[in-house]
């Protein structure tokens, strides 16, 4: 209920600002006479996915000996197949453009099917070890499968799962094999994160440029930049090479902020500003040996950043 809006609607109709035919419905909503439970139903469907996947996980863990690995693997596979078959039968025709969901539960049943299939694959890998020493590849298989499902059924939820699984594959592979190739596991993981991030950013760029599932672009680009900045930032805590990482982070985040400023991409602009400030502070406090003036630095520089932000807001005109 919103009494101010309820009071305003008749006045706006009288002044000709609102079309009279739509006003009664607006008024009912403002008076609290008509309430939507749409959001609540969707939240419950999310909750349902969590409950079922949690229950299945516990089932596998607690009943492994009693049921047997083959039965569990088959049961998980059947459950996943049931969900995905329903999705395939219900889904509208494929399009490279954004396709509206055919019904309220579609995205959630798709997510459930994909999660169950991924759990089944992981279970098979752990129990029957078909990939042997190369078990990390099963993450790549899951990433590829979820990416295919995301594109076919136009699901941003599943696309985010595909990206995060791909990143997990690179992270786990680097942590496991990095010492052989890179001498240090930390470096291997870091470079993998940066490379993975760059790949996602390029993927997002290509999707938008080709106008193929262009609405996936923000997800790929946001996750990509988080990985790049996180990877560069993690190097700043190295004892020997921290300065190089800090300078790299400063340059990259400055570039990101500038690019986001021009493109009016507000969240990316925020990433650039915050990461740039962290890198600059690291360089100033230790590189310039400002330890004793640390408080002064953290008093003065945020004020300069705020002044810059207010100027930038005027140019970028983010809606309040």
């Amino acid at each position: 209920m919103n009494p101010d809006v309820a009071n305003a609607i008749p006045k706006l109709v009288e002044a000709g600002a609102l079309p009279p035919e739509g006003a009664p419905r607006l008024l009912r909503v403002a008076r609290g006479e008509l309430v939507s439970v749409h959001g609540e139903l969707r939240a419950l469907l999310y909750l349902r996915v969590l409950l079922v996947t949690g229950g299945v996980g516990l089932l596998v863990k607690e009943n492994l000996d009693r049921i047997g690995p083959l039965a569990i693997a088959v049961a998980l596979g059947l459950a996943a197949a049931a969900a995905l078959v329903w999705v395939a039968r219900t889904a509208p025709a494929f399009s490279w453009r954004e396709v509206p969901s055919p019904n309220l539960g579609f995205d959630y049943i798709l997510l459930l099917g994909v999660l169950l299939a991924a759990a089944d694959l992981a279970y098979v890998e752990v129990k029957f070890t078909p990939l042997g020493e190369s078990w990390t590849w099963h993450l790549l298989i899951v990433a590829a499968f979820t990416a295919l499902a995301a594109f076919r059924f136009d699901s941003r939820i599943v696309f985010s799962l595909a990206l995060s699984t791909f990143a997990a594959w690179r992270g786990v592979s680097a942590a496991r094999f990095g010492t052989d190739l890179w001498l240090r596991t930390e470096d291997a993981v870091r470079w993998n994160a940066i490379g993975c991030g760059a790949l996602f950013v390029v993927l997002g760029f290509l999707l938008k440029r080709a106008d193929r599932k262009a609405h996936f672009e923000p997800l790929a680009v946001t996750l990509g930049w988080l990985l790049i900045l996180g990877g560069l930032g993690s190097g700043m805590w190295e004892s020997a090479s921290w300065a190089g990482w800090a300078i790299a982070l400063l340059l990259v985040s400055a570039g990101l902020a500038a690019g986001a400023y021009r493109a009016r991409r507000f969240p990316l602009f925020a990433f650039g500003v915050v990461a740039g400030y962290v890198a600059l502070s690291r360089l100033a406090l230790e590189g310039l040996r400002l330890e004793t003036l640390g408080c002064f630095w953290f008093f003065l520089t945020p004020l300069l950043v705020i002044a810059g932000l207010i100027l930038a807001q005027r140019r970028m005109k983010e809606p309040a």
Partner: protein
Amino acid sequence: MTRDAAQADRNAAVRAAARGWKQAGAIDEAALAAVAAAYPDDRHRLGPVFRVLVFLFTIIAINGASGFVWALINSAGEIQTLVILLVFGVALLVLTEIQVTKMRRAQGGSEAATSLVGIGYLVVFTGWTADKAGLSSLHVIAVVLLAAAFLFAGAAWRWGYPLYAGASLVALLAIFTAFPQGRLAWIVLPLLAAPVLARLAESARLPPAHRASCAAVLGVALVGLYVALNIASYDSGWLEPDLSIWKLRPAIWGPSVRWIFIATTALVPIVYLALGLRSRRWIFLMLGLGTGIASLITLRWYVHLAPLWAVLTVSGAALVAAVFALRRYLDSAPGKERHGFTAEPLFEDLARRRILEAGAAVMSLSPEARPVHEEPKFAGGGGEFGGGGSSSEF
């Protein structure tokens, strides 16, 4: 709130609603512009991203400034530190007042940061002073909570922050856990306050920020009432801490009243849901649902009806069946609505829907789902916090 700040808040609520109408396709760009002209904005506001950035950097700057002054004095003496806390705390609250009234700032990030850090400094000052005065640790905590309750309540009333209003009642209720029969206060206070707060949360006499503050306090009160009446809370003595503060002790009312708590654990969610359905108040509906889930978890804690995996899987399946049944029930009615409820997304729901979906998406680490094909008429393409009397300050 000052009179003009309240008027600005009312105008902002109308503009936010109009943006919802526009996003839902109920009005066009010209109508939106006409609403904006009829309900103009005289505040200096920032968009959500800039607001968060300014909030963050203001907090860094304030703490840098206080640390710098502390370093200049070059003393670790407690008196000097206390003076810095007091002076900075008061100065920051004055600065907030100036920003909100003279500078006409709203949703700008900086005024929220100065108010939050100012309150934080004064609360720490109060606690430290109480400790120096030789109070026991339990009483120091009570003094700190009392100071927090007063300061948050004052800030919510003066500057219209609903989050502060809720925090104020949280602090107030927490004080009672330091005293015998605190559970009684957790029951009586919400029971007395809830009817008044429910009315105030919809009162046209209050500006939207104050209505949202009342709703926040109501929400905390209802959660507090449920916690006080839950059987697990009673058995575990959640509200009756021993003098060695964090050590819990069993409930003090004895086993003879235990059955009352068993009954209330089951009844409170039903009452909340019934009130929500009858009055169509969102907060009762949500809390009815939330406390219902909490009561089911409590039941599972005491009574092992089935293995946990079976409970989770079956409740997941039951949930989806209930959702689809409810959806079908509502959709099958004329105009797709029954008793004032609809499963269609509505204009006023955009902020609330975003909060719900963002919460669920965070839980499952994924973005929200797509708009549904069945409702192209009202499918919104986004939304902002701040409509419907809510505040998007944080």
